[in-house]
């Protein structure tokens, strides 16, 4: 089976070793291919091994250099966060600026208030602001480090540099940019971000909740209500959970309207959560009505809201719910009974006689056992 293409290469066969090589190399094409493959594998393996060793060595050296850098700058960062006077610092080489920003970010993570402000001033005094803005033009890693730094600086003048990144294809970069905008100007950021969230399906709800938490109720209230009023039902259903970050007083009219006129399960749950926060006795009737809703999630939230404003005589309202078909509703009802004003283990023991449902009794017994002694 002659295959010229797989014949012994000239560079090998004309070397001083050819006779040995050719004596060993099989004539069969398949076997010859296997031998070449094995040799190629051995060579690649060797190269990978050398690569791994070099890589390990290089990264170990880099780590040592980085450690030395961090040790040299740690006193500076410590002094910066404590004192208003700019402390002496070691020379900062151009190539070390990225490490500096990384270390600065990490230090800022631990700081709050005035200490953070002092660190900001130190970075500006070193003239690194332009460098950090330049990082936003780089690749993902640089952008994220730059955005984190700008988040701590929280300077509204950087808004225009950061804003384009909220539309970045990468959800991680866009959310980091969003966080930075919130740090700069929470109200303005929320006006921009919440409408944008209606189109960005890749912005997960927990991350949006985190943004709202960071922005605060004042910044969230108006834009979230605007979005909920104007959005399509599917979008509304997705974003309605953010209502819990709004000011309950302002969100109450929307919530009451949902409970009176009807809405999806998610909307009713968000509405009840809002009324729970508000604790207005005028909403009692709405909440009691929701206790009988067909969706167990809604009943669960209604129990939470009812618990907030329940009176000592409200056991009668809650008792039927101990026989609810949902395990969670039964447990929440038992907890609500245990939290009624003036509730004692003895009183609840007496209530047990009125509970005919076995699972309801179990739930109530558990709640009694968990009551503080």
């Amino acid at each position: 089976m002659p295959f010229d293409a797989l014949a012994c290469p000239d560079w090998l066969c004309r070397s001083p070793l050819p006779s040995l090589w050719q004596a060993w190399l099989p004539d069969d094409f398949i076997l010859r291919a296997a031998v070449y493959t094995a040799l190629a594998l051995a060579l690649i393996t060797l190269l990978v091994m050398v690569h791994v060793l070099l890589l390990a060595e290089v990264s170990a050296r880099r780590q040592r250099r980085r450690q030395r850098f961090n040790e040299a700058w740690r006193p500076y960062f410590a002094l910066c966060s404590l004192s208003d006077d700019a402390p002496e610092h070691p020379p900062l080489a151009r190539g070390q600026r990225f490490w500096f920003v990384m270390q600065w970010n990490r230090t800022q993570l631990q700081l709050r208030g005035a200490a953070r402000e002092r660190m900001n001033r130190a970075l500006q005094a070193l003239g690194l602001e332009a460098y950090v803005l330049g990082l936003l033009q780089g690749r993902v890693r640089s952008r994220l480090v730059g955005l984190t730094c700008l988040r701590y600086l929280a300077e509204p003048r950087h808004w225009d540099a950061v804003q384009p990144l909220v539309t970045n294809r990468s959800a991680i970069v866009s959310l980091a940019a969003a966080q930075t905008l919130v740090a700069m100007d929470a109200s303005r950021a929320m006006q921009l971000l919440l409408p944008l969230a209606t189109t960005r399906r890749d912005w997960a709800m927990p991350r949006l909740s985190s943004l709202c938490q960071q922005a605060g109720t004042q910044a969230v209230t108006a834009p979230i209500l605007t979005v909920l009023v104007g959005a399509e039902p599917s979008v509304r259903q997705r974003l309605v959970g953010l209502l819990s970050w709004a000011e309950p007083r302002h969100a109450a009219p929307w919530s009451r309207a949902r409970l009176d006129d009807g809405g999806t399960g998610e909307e009713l749950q968000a509405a009840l959560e809002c009324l729970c926060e508000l604790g207005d006795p005028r909403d009692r009737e709405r909440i009691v009505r929701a206790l009988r809703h067909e969706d167990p999630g809604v009943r669960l939230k209604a129990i939470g809201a009812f618990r907030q404003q329940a009176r000592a005589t409200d056991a009668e309202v809650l008792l039927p719910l101990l026989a609810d078909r949902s395990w969670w509703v039964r447990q929440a009802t038992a907890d609500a009974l245990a939290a009624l004003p003036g509730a004692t283990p003895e009183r609840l023991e007496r209530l047990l006689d009125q509970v005919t449902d076995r699972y309801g009794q179990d739930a109530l017994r558990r709640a009694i056992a968990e009551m503080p002694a």
Partner: protein
Amino acid sequence: MTVDWTWWAQLGFILYFLLLNGMYLLLNALSMISLTSYLRERAETGEVAPYLGVEPPVSILMPAYNEEATIRTSVRSMLQLQYPDFEVVVINDGSKDQTLAVLMAEFELEPHPEPLRQAVEHKPVLGIYRSRRYANLRVIDKANGGKADALNAGINAARHGLFCGVDADSILQRDSLLRVVQPFLEDERTVAAGGTVRIANGSQVRGGFLIKAGLPGNWLARFQIVEYLRAFLFGRLGWSPMNAVLIISGAFGLFDRERVMAVGGYRTDTVGEDMELVVRLHRYHRAAKIPYRIRYLPDPICWTECPEDLGTLGRQRSRWQRGLAESLVRHVRLPLSRRGGAAGWLAWPFMALFEWLGPLIELVGYVFMIAGFALGAVSYTALAAFLLVAIGMGILLSVNGLLLETLSFRVYSRRRDMLQLFLMAILENFGYRQLNTLWRVRGLWQWFSRSKHNWGVMKRSGKWGQ
């Protein structure tokens, strides 16, 4: 005619080995891309685990069977995890030793009249206890039913929407929970996420936490370190971006409780309950057209003690192989479905061809080539070429596992450790790999013959408990 047959057989085996290892190399390349992008995206927080303040509460479920030596330390380590809101539910699965007594004494347990949901089935619960010292610790004492059964009881007892299944003989890195929850925060479609399991033998453990990673003195344990790096860093990382991860290790995985209950919880009639659940989750979501994601993450780390004797290791590998066979066969419709996706059309056939039937083909290959050589039907060069390709590919794959480790987390950062791991990557191909093949074939036989098989006794040093 005979010559033709043997020639084709030789060709077949060599091609199979090339295909097998070629696919692994492809997976390796995918893992490298995935790892690089993952590390880049984590640059924002670096070594510090991100903390958003909106992390959902998690129930940690820890099934325990005869764990009196390590349970104290394991539970303590879980209670000290860096996570805003979590509970620990230990499920004593009818232990015959003093596991429950140790827990009662150490954590001041008291009986708690708690009704359990019956969302998923399990053996009867004998008692529920809560700790007087730790408000977030509960212990479920139940009749013995196996790990899957214990996890089902834990799912019923869990009070939070996410549950994390952990082995009682494993320890988590302090920030592992915070890291493994990230996919649930980044993508609402996430229903399960798994982290990396690493070997703790030879490392320093104090107070339930790993202080310093190191290499064990035992050679079997060292081989397993290379094996685990290979299995996790590219075996799973490569499939994750395609949403085709079929295994989340039972030692450490985070799940959406409602979704797991929707598929009926863990199956108790398989020894590979962890893989079976993940494959079932794929099938359920695909059939019901529910968007979902199952992720693997390289940085949440769970440390586990690996077997250091051949008997225990052999039983463990046979069991894994049997579990794999059960999971794949039970869900044979996944690759045939029109909605199979990457999990059904790529990962399932890959696992079936190379992991399920692989050991059998490998064994037949070895036997055929060696017997053929002995009988004169296979030439010396054919045998040598076969062994060179098979072993060469094996070494290359193991070394690539080390490359991924060096590129990413560098847990074994000392040069001496790295050189020793290289040596292991080479030596494991001379004896250990073939032994593994035999154990796996035994597992296949156990699966095929439906032989009643128990887990056997897992010998542990129990050093962590000291």
